[in-house]
């Protein structure tokens, strides 16, 4: 810590800004890839695809929605619903709200970016109503990239930066794990592996990295284990690990005192030394493990940095 750390309240805001912006970005990529599949593949079962998309994001589809789901129900709930922080509009609203409370901890340019994004959303939504969701989703990805670029270019690499990047990385791991989970939960309905690559923004990088044709095992190991691709789970874990290192520097002679670091480091090691050839059969285990690691790390970071409460020491009243 560069002499005294920072306010816990601000740290928590920055962490959640990182998470929500990443969530909006990732959701936009996933929805775009799914819409693309539904529109382009004449053999696709639209209802099942939409259900698998809800399943990925952990949203229960109620009994009353037994009927066939369509892309427009997906768009309503996962894109435009500002009340639901799992939707794109909701995540951007939440990022904005957190930024509003931490304006002094981020640069003006970052604040303007989030604020202008939120202000422009209604117009973008009505535009999407006439010409389709593609431009809306592209707008969201571009704004997320702009935000990340501004953060990269305009703020110091102090603890605040570490929390921002930590939030972004944990969310990224979580989303990658969810995407692959979607493949397990409803394999016969979920889109093909190439759609998963597209949904992770990994299509072109994957094609350049792999020589031949796309096999499931290759794609799964690219999304989980690749050392160079910034959206792979391994890469994001390494970044998160680095953030935690810098937040609590110095090692003790034995063990790790930071529980979050222990969890993230263990997950990183598990992926680093996983056998790519056996990855597909071990996939359920690996994903469970990742998902748990994200949840535990989130709780540990919250407890350690945002909620630490020193016991109040009572003293006798000072007499005038």
């Amino acid at each position, binding site marked *: 810590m560069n002499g005294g750390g920072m306010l816990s309240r601000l740290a928590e805001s920055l962490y959640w800004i990182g998470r929500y912006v990443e969530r909006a970005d990732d959701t936009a990529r996933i929805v775009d890839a799914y819409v693309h599949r539904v529109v382009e593949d004449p053999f696709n079962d639209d209802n099942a695809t939409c259900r698998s998309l809800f399943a990925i994001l*952990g949203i229960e589809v109620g009994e009353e929605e037994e009927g066939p789901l369509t892309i427009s129900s997906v768009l309503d709930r996962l894109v435009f619903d500002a009340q639901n922080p799992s939707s794109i509009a909701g995540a951007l609203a939440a990022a904005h709200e957190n930024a509003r409370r931490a304006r002094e901890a981020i640069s003006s340019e970052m604040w303007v970016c989030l604020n202008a994004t939120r202000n422009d959303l209604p117009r973008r939504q009505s535009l999407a109503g006439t010409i389709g969701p593609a431009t809306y989703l592209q707008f969201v990805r571009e704004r997320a990239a702009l935000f990340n670029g501004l953060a990269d270019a305009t703020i110091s690499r102090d603890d605040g930066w570490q929390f921002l990047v930590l939030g972004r990385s944990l969310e990224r791991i979580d989303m990658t794990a969810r995407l692959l989970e979607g493949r*397990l939960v409803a394999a016969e309905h979920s889109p093909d592996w190439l759609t998963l690559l597209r949904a992770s923004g990994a299509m072109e990088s994957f094609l350049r990295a792999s020589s031949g044709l796309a096999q499931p095992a290759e794609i799964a190991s690219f999304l989980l284990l690749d050392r160079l691709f910034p959206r792979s789970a391994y890469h994001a874990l390494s970044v998160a690990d680095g953030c935690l290192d810098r937040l609590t520097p110095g090692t003790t002679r034995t063990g790790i005192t930071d529980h979050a670091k222990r969890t993230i480091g263990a997950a990183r090691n598990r992926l680093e030394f996983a056998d790519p050839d056996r990855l597909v059969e071990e996939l359920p285990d690996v994903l469970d493990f990742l998902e748990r690691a994200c949840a535990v790390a989130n709780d540990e970071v919250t407890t350690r940095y945002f909620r630490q409460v020193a016991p109040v020491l009572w003293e006798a009243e000072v007499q005038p």
Partner: protein
Amino acid sequence: MEHLFVDAPSTGAWDEVFAAPGVVRPLYRDVVDVLQRFDVTELRSRFDQLARTFTDRGVTFALGGEERPFPLDLIPRLISAVEWEALAAGIRQRVRALEAFLDDVYREGRVFDDGVVPRALITTSPHYRREAFGITAHHAARITVSGIDVIRDEAGAFRVLEDNVRIPSGVSYVIENRRAMTQSFAGLFADHRVHPVDEYPARLLAALRRSAPEGVTDPTVVVLTPGVHNAAYFEHVLLARMMGVELVEGRDLTTVSNKVMMRTTQGERPVHVIYRRVDDEWLDPLQFRPDSVLGCAGLVNAARAKTVTIANAIGNGVADDKLVYTYVPDLIRYYLSEAPLLDNVETHRLEDPEVLAEVRAHLEDYVVKPVDGSGGKGIVIGPQADQATLAELDAAICADPRGFIAQRPVALSTLPTYVGSKIAPRHVDLRPFAVNDGQDVWVLSGGLTRVALPEGALVVNSSQGGGSKDTWVLVDEGEPAPLPKPETSIDRTITPQVGPDVARQRGPHVNAGADQ
């Protein structure tokens, strides 16, 4: 909104959408229904949206040194499953025959000995490459990629207008058109089941890998481009990107003892398959034009030594010479013992003095084309030409009868096309793309529909003011999905996404108390 559609002046052309004025063919009912719900402003804004998508993505071609977006029309072209299957079968047949022909020409020449085509036909072709004689690659097709241009005649039947088996371009527009259309017209797709087109790069890559020299199990495939100034550079980039292979220029390549290498930061790396988008004559300065800097010296020898496969093969131009075109139905019968499934357009060979005299007497009734032209260059459409042009043409065909063919002018079929603020019929053709992996010929379901935008124009090339349309091959009712999905699901649920714990009242969260 009927008024948006302008009726065609009767030219005898086949109207693909309207069976008669106001009577929509069943295939197009849903499309016309949707379009009629739009008013002029909405059409305009969607058209602008498409154009913007293309400009942003850099979907352009170079015309006279200027980068322009390739105009994509709003209204798709539909082809039914049954009709497509018949057309695709015809394309496959034609490609197989041309493949056999090229193999024969560059090896035994049986076709000459048997008197099917005169040997002079080949030896006088400017695209015959003696240098390629005897080169055969392991497993490889000579025509890995082909684009057979077809049109619908006045009766609605598909006919072949020309064969392109050298370096046909345009498939990138097929892919980008579909992308732009699904983004801007998602609603229209909901009413139709359309075959996707995005598997093309994977098919091409598989064919290229299969054509690798014997013994190479994990071949390095590259796309060879003439460079950023080429009109089709955009396409070269797209294919390389979607196949995940290197896009190389001639200067990136070198040959070392008959092996082709590319220069990398880690030293020279062998190259096994070159999908080249450089013309024969620029490919190898040792064999062809010595002033070429676009190719790589020693390429032809490397191919002869079978260390590298060049696709498409060198010298394919003899097969798409327009005079050879007139023999293709004979070639199909000769090599395949099959009756041709697709007809040619009626074409006259001018080498016969009687035919020449007949054509010269009625030049205004013919379309005359140079045999080795491409991009619509040098075509004279008799009925639309002025006297000066016809006189010039007359002199040209007298001087070089081998250099031209004469065809009956076919009124290409029309499709309603958005022009200005209305929808009016414009002439179209179709270029389906076929990939031959040496074993099977696969035809991409779709293809490039090119449209001549000026009213009445019959030349559809992009260099002549052409645009394009997304081409939808519909899925037959009951057609099974091509790939079974064998994986089974397991019983799992995924947990909801987390947010800051609002119950604890402290941290920042979404629904914070009202401001004062």
